[in-house]
């Protein structure tokens, strides 16, 4: 196995409280040492990281790969290739594939496909309920055994709070993390934008903040009741953040993530009827965006995810409410995170923690850190390199992003997974 030396980079490893210029030593696919001379170490390969940042590979808690079932939107191969180019070394695949991830067979199929793709590690998230129908429990123990890292009902509705309670109790019996997408469907009422001045002006079906905040409040009570490890996926508004902050103060074991685009766009930024802005949860208000940024800085929100949802052209071709929601967002994850640093919303150290250490802690995996002995999952990026989002740079099958055509700053130069270079610029 190759020995690799990454020299003279700005090493940021929040899990080990490292933030300094130095070198990383890799051997046998594992991190050997950081900033310490290793005697007798002769590198087979040296990567000069001068002026670049060296950090643990990013862990993305929500990335749809559209595989199995919707390969016209993307495949495990195409989307993990895009993820590798974005510095992502591990990602979680929500269970709403087709077929749903609710059997060992589907879980193993995904594991098999991603092993062959040989790119970032794919962690399937098992279905919380059978076929995601929201009524009966899935075989969680079998799913866990087959490799599911958590369980979730994705954006599918549950038929009752009793089902949610039982599912949380059962998941907790198997020490499985429950990832919950807070939404009360009867209140969201098939809306497609935030309920506010924008929706009113354009006559679009809308979703009030209450449909998310009520779901957060209910689920927090059930976490208290069941003792389940709970993670909120993609919260979008201030009222949810306030409730999570209170729960954390109270000592509840709960974490939360936010989709990167929610930290940058609001309903005021939506170009009227431009379907690339159609996303769920919808873009909220300036006040919500500000609150989400503050929540990330103060630790209420632990994690930034991509919430990657690639689409084919047809899915976005139609009148706004009829188009499919979602943004293809793996490749803009790092530059948009760096923009938060530029806006002084978070420090670079905090931003990297939200992409590495924090998601690893939530998933309870030995990753997201440059700890000696851990698999050498590493991202090296140039924080000042500008690039334009266009067909020459883009790798995902889905080109559905409101950032298409824009020039962004910050680009990954190398991605290593278990000491193997899976991407170079």
């Amino acid at each position, binding site marked *: 196995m190759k020995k690799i030396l990454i020299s003279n980079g700005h090493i940021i490893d929040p899990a080990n409280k490292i933030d300094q210029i130095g070198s990383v030593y890799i051997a046998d696919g594992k991190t050997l040492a950081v900033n310490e001379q290793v005697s007798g170490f002769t590198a087979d390969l040296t990567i000069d990281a001068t002026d670049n940042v060296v950090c643990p590979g990013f862990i993305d808690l929500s990335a749809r790969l559209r595989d199995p079932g919707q390969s016209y939107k993307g495949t495990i191969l195409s989307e993990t290739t895009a993820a590798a180019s974005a510095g992502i070394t591990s990602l979680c695949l929500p269970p709403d594939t087709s077929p749903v991830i609710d059997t060992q067979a589907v879980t193993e199929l995904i594991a098999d496909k991603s092993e062959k793709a040989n790119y970032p590690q794919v962690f399937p998230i098992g279905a919380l309920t059978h076929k995601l129908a929201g009524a009966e429990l899935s075989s969680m123990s079998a799913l866990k055994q087959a490799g599911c890292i958590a369980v979730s009902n994705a954006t599918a509705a549950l038929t009752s709070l009793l089902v949610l309670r039982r599912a949380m109790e059962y998941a907790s019996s198997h020490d499985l993390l429950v990832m919950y997408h807070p939404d009360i469907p009867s209140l969201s009422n098939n809306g497609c934008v935030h*309920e506010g001045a924008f929706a*009113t*002006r354009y*006559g679009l*079906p809308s979703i*009030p903040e209450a449909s998310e905040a009520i779901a957060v409040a209910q689920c927090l009570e059930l976490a208290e009741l069941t003792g389940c490890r709970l993670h909120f996926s993609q919260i979008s508004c201030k009222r949810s953040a306030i409730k999570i902050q209170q729960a954390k103060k109270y000592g509840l074991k709960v974490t939360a993530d936010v989709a990167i685009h929610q930290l940058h766009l609001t309903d005021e930024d939506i170009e009227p009827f431009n379907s690339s802005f159609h996303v769920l949860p919808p873009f909220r208000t300036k006040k919500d965006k500000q609150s989400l940024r503050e929540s990330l800085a103060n630790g209420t929100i632990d994690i930034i995810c991509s919430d990657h949802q690639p689409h084919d052209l047809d899915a976005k*071709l139609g*009148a*706004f409410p009829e188009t499919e929601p979602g943004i293809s967002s793996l490749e803009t994850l790092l530059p948009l995170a760096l923009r938060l640093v530029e806006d002084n919303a978070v420090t670079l150290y905090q931003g990297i923690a939200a992409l590495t250490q924090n998601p690893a802690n939530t998933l309870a995996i030995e990753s997201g850190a440059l700890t000696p002995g851990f698999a050498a999952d590493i991202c090296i990026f140039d924080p000042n390199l500008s690039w334009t989002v266009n067909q020459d740079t883009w790798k995902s099958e889905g080109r559905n992003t409101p950032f298409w055509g824009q020039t962004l700053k910050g680009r990954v130069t190398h991605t290593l997974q278990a000491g193997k270079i899976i991407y170079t610029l």
Partner: protein
Amino acid sequence: MKNLQLNTEGKLKHFLSIDGLSKEILTEILDTAESFSSMSEKQVKKVPLLRGKTIVNLFFENSTRTRTTFELAATRLSADVLSINIATSATSKGESLLDTIRNLEAMHVDMFIVRHAISGAGHFIAQNTAPHISVINAGDGQHAHPTQAMLDMFTIRQYKHDFSQLKVAIIGDILHSRVARSQIQALNTLGCKEVRVIAPKTLLPSHVESLGVTAFNCIEEGLEDVDVIIMLRLQKERMTSALLPSEREYFKCFGLTEERLKLAKGNAIVMHPGPINRGVEIESSIADGPQSVILKQVSNGIIVRMAIMSLTLQNNGEA
């Protein structure tokens, strides 16, 4: 963002929404309609302005009245008109909206008049159609119904002349009304002194004030001293979706009665985009009474649509 409705010279090319249009453009539409107004009384009710042009009425939602006035307006401009009722046509066989448009484009048409149940359908078609084709929105979801708003503005101008002194009240289901949204935008653009909306909270959109209106939940307060009263049609579905308890209670609280009409100015006019639910939103005697201009709205509908069709086609390249 550049306004999709305007050509490179800033002239109206599509007519999709009042939103983003200037007072000058709206006034030009009203003035052009005015120039057609003497025509309706003539023996020969035709001008050759759009001779040789093909106009397609593309109605994804049924509406006999709006479609008929568009057909009549097109015929009076000497255009050839084709009306397609999509509700019973190809799209129900799985043909996509875009395929339908592409097929009609291939037949060398010049204008689409579109009614659709989804907000933004008109914008979508205008964005995806060949550049020489003009698109007129005849109502899309809850978004806009700009030709209806313009015929209402024309009617108001006929009776009241100057917008700057007017207080206008719109009563009814504002939440679901594309007519109300377009009327509010038109009234504000034309410099109306005050626009009020009157409805229970269940029928008002959130942040309704952001549209530039004052909201009232009590009809008596809202009607005080207004010059123009616009009633909206109440759809039966509102009762089954828990927005209102009953038609009877609605009429009791928000119906326009002779008694309530007295709260407005003595010379106030009463408007309704039709069709009327007599005894639900308006008392029969008012609908047929001296202050009602409801039938005048209908006849104005033809000349205002003639104005919009001829202006957009003239401003669109080869016309």
